[in-house]
Structure formats: structure tokens, C-alpha cells
């Protein structure tokens, strides 16, 4: 790892909620007048952490607050956080699209940012013309684009349409062309925001490969995504943002595990699910509690290998719901949903009257040793609309040893997550 190429110091960004209207002009005049007299801006002192679910006192919020970090040359830093945690705001400030309110960022080398693919594409121009336009918007010189032109076209796989206006393209072709241009940028520092979530599976694979190449060439990458497997595949370290604050920075696996299990689950014995963990669906029902129990009903965070366990949920239904299905999901430490169970073994919809429910789900599925957490969902059976959804909560561990201590999982690496029920029939022929 080389020298520090990005240095972020006490960075903060304040936003005003609500409409820009006549009320704002008096604030503006007040601000300007104080600044003219050399006074401090009074509005920087107020403002709250950005928590969307609570109604705040002030209409000023800090989308980012006191962010400090450094990135070394060749590092691939992933940034994770829930929606609204300030990830995109941070990337916007880094790519100079929006200015910070306080603090500073120092950078060595040329930055290119991909907050969107196809920025500046003009629908009436042909693919060829747009490659040049988009490339130079992203900071490439005309010579650079010319020398890579054939490569870009080959990567996009749309040679045949290269002289057709892009407004005639299918959306997939459009995105392919746009990503192809972006993928051939060669800045010292690349900032990427979730652009991998485009195109078909094959193309996504191609994009991921390209990103890996970029980092292998020793260039620095800052990467925001909700996709934990690609995070793990690419990043050398990860930063977690929560309500605009940096709550953790370090080793990729550790940070992802910390993010997914949620900081609350560690010291929360009652298993109460914090309100802000929910993805807030239509809201007729809400998961209140989640505990992992052994078969005696004791709350436990660690289970032995091959031990059965119970997932105990408290569900509050505030209005009768019909044609719904409740789902319990086992989530890996990478954030992948490994397996799931529903409240009805024939996968039929059911209904719940208003009231509080205590649900016990006994798992006989044998999990291989490792860290897991639980995802919960209640949704409408036919439309798939979420009523309430918890991505990941209640982290627990499966140990290597069995309960009766008669055996131990023998290897350091664990392949996969579950132990299927199998029958081996071995004959010598």
C-alpha cells in the first residue's frame, strides 16, 4: 500500500428540509449580514443527525457529520449503510458535484466519478457520437477516447447499432454502451455508486471483472453498494455510515458482519427490533422482537454444530390482514439470503387478525459453522408488497463442536452454509 491519496477531515454537509420559499430568503439575508460582519454562521451550530423516521426539532439536518478517513493508494474502500445514511452525499462531495458545508477533502491524482452511467448522453446523437461526448464529460481527452474506441465498442457488444441514435436503443443496450465508456476510464481514483446494478447477469459479471482489473492495476477505488457479495469480492476495507456518521471502518468481513447483524443485537437481550431497522412497508403489521432460542426455550446467541434451534418472533398486527405470508430468512455473514421458511408449509396465503402474535419457528435445518443473522418479512402473497421487512437482525453463531461433544467440524474453511439430509450409497464396482 502506498501513500495517502485521499484525506477527509471533519467533513460535514447540512441540508435544509422542506421547500425553498419565502422563509428561506430571510435566513439567507441574515446569514449574509452576519458573514459581512465577520461573524460565525449561526445555522451551523444547529441541525440534527439525519434520522428520517423521527420528526425532528429543526428543519436543518446534517446529512454527513464529522467524517474523517484516509484512503491509501491502491486501496478499494467500500461504503455501506442503509438508505439515507449519507453514502451518496459523501460520493457527491468527493466527486465535486456538491460542496461540503464544513471540513475539507484533500486529493492526490485525477478523480473520475461514476455516479450514474450515461451522463450527458444525447438521445438524438448516434452511439459513436455519444461515446465521445460521454467520455469527455467523464474527463477523457479526445485522443484517449479515439485510442480506446474499438475496445469500448467491443466491450459494449453493440457494434451493429453504433451509428444509430441512442434514443432507438433498448434500455439494456443504452446501459451497456454507457458502462462500456465508463469502464475504460483510467483515472488514479475512481468513485463508483452502485452502477453494477444494471444489465443482465452476464453483463454484470463482465462489469465486476472490469472493476477487479481496475483495482489490480493499483488504482484507488471508492465503491458504494448494497450488494454485499460484490463488496466482499472487491473491497480491501469497508466503512459503515449511519445517520451521516462514520460508525466503523476496517476489515471488509468484520465490517459487513457488523453492519448486517446490527450494533443493537449485541447488547439487546430482549431482542427488541429497533424501529429504524425496518424497511417500512405498508405498515399493517410490525415485527417487534426476535430471539434465537435453544429447544429448552433459553435465549442463546451461540449454537452447537447440528443443534436444532428456535427463532422466536413477536409480530404486532394493527389491522387485520388477509392473503399474506410470513417469512423467516437465514442470512449469511456476507448478506446473502441462504434459505428461508414460510408460515405455511404448502406455501399458501394466510390471514392474521388484529393483535399481538408470538411465533416460534423450530429450525431443523443443520447450519454449517459460521456467523448468521435472521431476516424477517411479512408481505402480501399475490402482489409481493412488503408489509414489514427486516433485512438482517439477531446475529448468532454456529460453533464447530456438536452439543454432545462427540465430533467437531474438522477444517478451517467452511464450504457453504447448510448440511443437507443425505443418504450415501457406496458400492464397489
Amino acid at each position, binding site marked *: 500500500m502506498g501513500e495517502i491519496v485521499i*484525506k477527509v477531515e471533519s467533513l460535514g454537509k447540512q*441540508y*435544509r428540509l422542506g421547500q*425553498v420559499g419565502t422563509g*428561506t*430568503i430571510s435566513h*439567507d439575508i441574515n446569514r449574509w449580514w452576519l458573514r459581512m460582519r465577520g461573524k460565525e454562521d449561526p445555522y451551523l451550530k444547529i441541525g440534527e443527525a439525519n434520522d428520517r423516521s423521527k420528526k425532528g426539532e429543526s428543519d436543518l439536518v446534517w446529512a454527513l457529520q464529522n467524517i474523517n478517513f484516509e484512503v491509501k493508494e491502491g486501496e478499494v474502500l467500500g461504503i455501506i449503510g442503509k438508505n439515507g445514511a449519507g453514502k451518496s452525499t459523501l460520493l*457527491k*462531495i*468527493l*466527486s*465535486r*458535484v*456538491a*460542496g*461540503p*458545508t*464544513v*471540513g*475539507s*477533502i*484533500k*486529493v*492526490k*491524482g*485525477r*478523480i473520475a*466519478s461514476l*455516479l*450514474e452511467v450515461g*451522463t*450527458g448522453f*444525447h438521445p*438524438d*446523437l448516434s452511439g459513436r*457520437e455519444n461515446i*465521445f*461526448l460521454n467520455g*469527455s*464529460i*467523464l*474527463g477523457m*481527452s*479526445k485522443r484517449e477516447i479515439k485510442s480506446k474506441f474499438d475496445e469500448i465498442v467491443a466491450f459494449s457488444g453493440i457494434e451493429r447499432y453504433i451509428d444509430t*441514435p441512442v434514443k432507438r436503443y433498448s434500455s439494456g443496450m443504452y446501459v451497456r454502451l454507457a458502462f462500456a465508456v465508463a469502464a475504460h476510464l483510467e483515472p488514479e481514483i475512481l468513485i463508483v455508486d452502485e452502477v453494477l446494478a444494471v444489465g443482465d447477469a452476464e453483463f454484470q459479471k463482465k462489469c465486476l471483472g472490469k472493476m477487479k482489473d481496475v483495482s489490480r492495476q493499483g488504482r484507488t477505488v471508492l465503491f458504494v453498494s448494497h450488494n454485499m457479495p460484490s463488496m466482499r469480492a472487491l473491497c480491501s476495507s469497508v466503512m459503515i455510515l449511519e445517520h451521516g456518521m462514520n460508525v466503523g471502518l476496517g476489515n471488509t468481513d468484520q465490517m459487513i458482519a457488523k453492519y448486517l447483524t446490527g450494533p443493537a443485537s449485541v447488547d439487546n437481550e430482549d431482542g427488541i427490533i429497533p424501529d429504524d431497522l425496518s424497511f417500512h412497508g405498508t405498515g399493517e403489521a410490525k415485527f417487534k422482537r426476535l430471539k434465537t432460542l435453544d429447544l429448552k426455550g433459553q435465549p442463546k446467541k451461540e449454537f452447537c454444530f447440528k443443534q436444532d434451534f428456535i427463532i422466536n418472533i413477536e409480530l404486532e398486527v394493527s389491522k387485520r390482514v388477509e392473503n399474506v405470508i410470513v417469512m423467516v430468512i437465514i442470512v449469511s455473514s456476507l448478506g446473502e439470503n441462504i434459505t428461508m421458511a414460510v408460515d405455511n408449509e404448502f406455501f399458501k396465503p394466510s390471514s392474521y387478525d388484529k393483535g399481538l402474535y408470538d411465533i416460534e419457528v423450530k429450525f431443523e435445518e443443520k447450519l454449517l459453522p459460521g456467523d448468521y443473522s435472521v431476516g424477517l418479512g411479512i408481505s402480501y402473497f399475490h402482489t409481493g408488497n412488503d408489509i414489514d421487512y427486516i433485512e438482517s437482525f439477531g446475529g448468532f453463531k454456529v460453533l464447530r463442536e456438536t452439543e454432545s461433544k462427540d465430533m467437531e467440524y474438522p477444517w478451517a474453511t467452511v464450504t457453504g452454509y447448510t448440511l443437507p439430509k443425505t443418504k450415501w450409497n457406496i458400492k464397489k464396482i
Partner: protein
Amino acid sequence: MKERWDLEIKPQDKWYHLDLGAIWAYKDLLLLMVRRDFVSVYKQTILGPLWLFIQPIITTLTFTIIFGNIAHISTDGIPPILFYLSGITLWTYFADCLTKTSGTFIANAGVFGKVYFPRLIMPLSVLISNLVKLAIQLLMFLIFWIYFLSKGTDIHPHYLYIITVPFLILIMAGLGLGFGILISSLTTKYRDLTFLVGFGVQLMMYASPIVYPLSVVPGKYKFILLLNPVTSIIEAFKFTFLGTGIWNWNALLYSIIFMIILVLLSVIVFKKVEKTFMDTV
């Protein structure tokens, strides 16, 4: 040891930190933008760039009929077509530059919100692509002008002054850019000024000697007209090609100083706004 950083992102730069060098680094983008403006406008049209000729000709004919034939406003003895066309050609450049650059931030919010490049590229590209348009329309004016000269019409151009035409255009460009980006910077938060632009430009045309010569303006109004920095330039243009109009050094100097101060001021404001506009637009 003091570390060297290529770039420092801070809440505000000093007002004199204009970073105009960055524009040079993006000159390829500037040219591509010009090309885009030019190519995309006439895509899917049958007449294509012919529209460049149709617009001023129809305007000139309209003016000839309304102001010449119906209202009988003097043209200082110049054939009406030549008189109106000379004014319209230069005025259109100014008005187009102003109106199009005045929407810089709002029209480009989508692109500006996703990627950084020197924001001044956008208004500059408008200036240049309109310059191409102006060149074509100027050519058309010259064809008419030569036609009338060869017919022996009674006009007395000041041929030597033709070398000043690029400077006149430059002043016009500066004025259009200055007013335009100033308005564009002021409208990111409060949109009030956008309502003014449309009819403001139209009103300003009547405060400039386009449809009438300065010579017919009564003394007490002349003062107002000379406050308008465009006036002296239009007059100088007519003086050069048509021999009428007034070549007034003081008024020209006023326009030049006005333009320089306006451009400086507007670029400073523009640079200040480009940092924060994404939050307020």
C-alpha cells in the same frame, strides 16, 4: 514538510480563485458540446441548417412591413432589408447567448448533479455554437450588402472600420455571457428572474437601435439609450457597413468597460454558485 495535494475540496474558495486553467484541460469537451448543440438541433428536420437563413429573413420581412411600410419609421435612407438585417444579425447573437446561458444551471442540473467538469464549459459552448450561427447569418447579410452595393444603392460604408467587427462581436458575446450566467446563477434558488428573461430581452430590443436609427431618437431619450451597452455596438456596426449611425468612442469605451466588469462579476458569482447549486436548484 508540507504535503502536496492536487486538489482540495473546501466549503468555499476565495472569490478570486477562478481556476480558468481547468477550462483549457477540458477543451475537447467544449468542442464536443459545440458540435452537439449544432448537430442535435437540426436532427430530424427536413430543411436542416436552412432554418438559419429562414429565421432572420422572415423577421426582417416582418419588420420591413410593420415598422417600415405601416409605421413609416425612418431607416436613415438605407434599404429597409439591409437596415433591419444588420441590426437583427448582431442582436440575435446577443439575445441567443443571453437566453441560452441564462438557463445553464437549471437546464444542466441532471448532468451537473452526476459528474464534475468546469461548469463554465456549458455557457462557453453556447457562445461558440451561436458564433457559428452568427457567422452564417453574417455571410447572408454580406451577400445582401454586396448585392445592394453592386446595384449602386446610395450607401457609403466605412470600409476601414470592417476590421473592428470581430471586436464588436466579442463585446456582444461578453455582454450576452455576462448577463446570461449572472441570471443563471441568481435563479438557482429563487426562480423569479427566469420570468424576466423572456420578455426582458424583447423589451431590451426596443431599447436598442434595431428597428429605428439612433438619429431619430429625441434628445431626452437618447441618454437612456446610451446607457444600454448594446446601443453603441449596433450603431458602430451600422456605421461600418451602412455609413449611417454614429461612431462614438466614449459610448464604445463605456460598453467595453461595462462588458469587462459584467463578465468578471458574473464569473465570480457563477463560480460561487456552482459549488452549492446542487442543493438549491
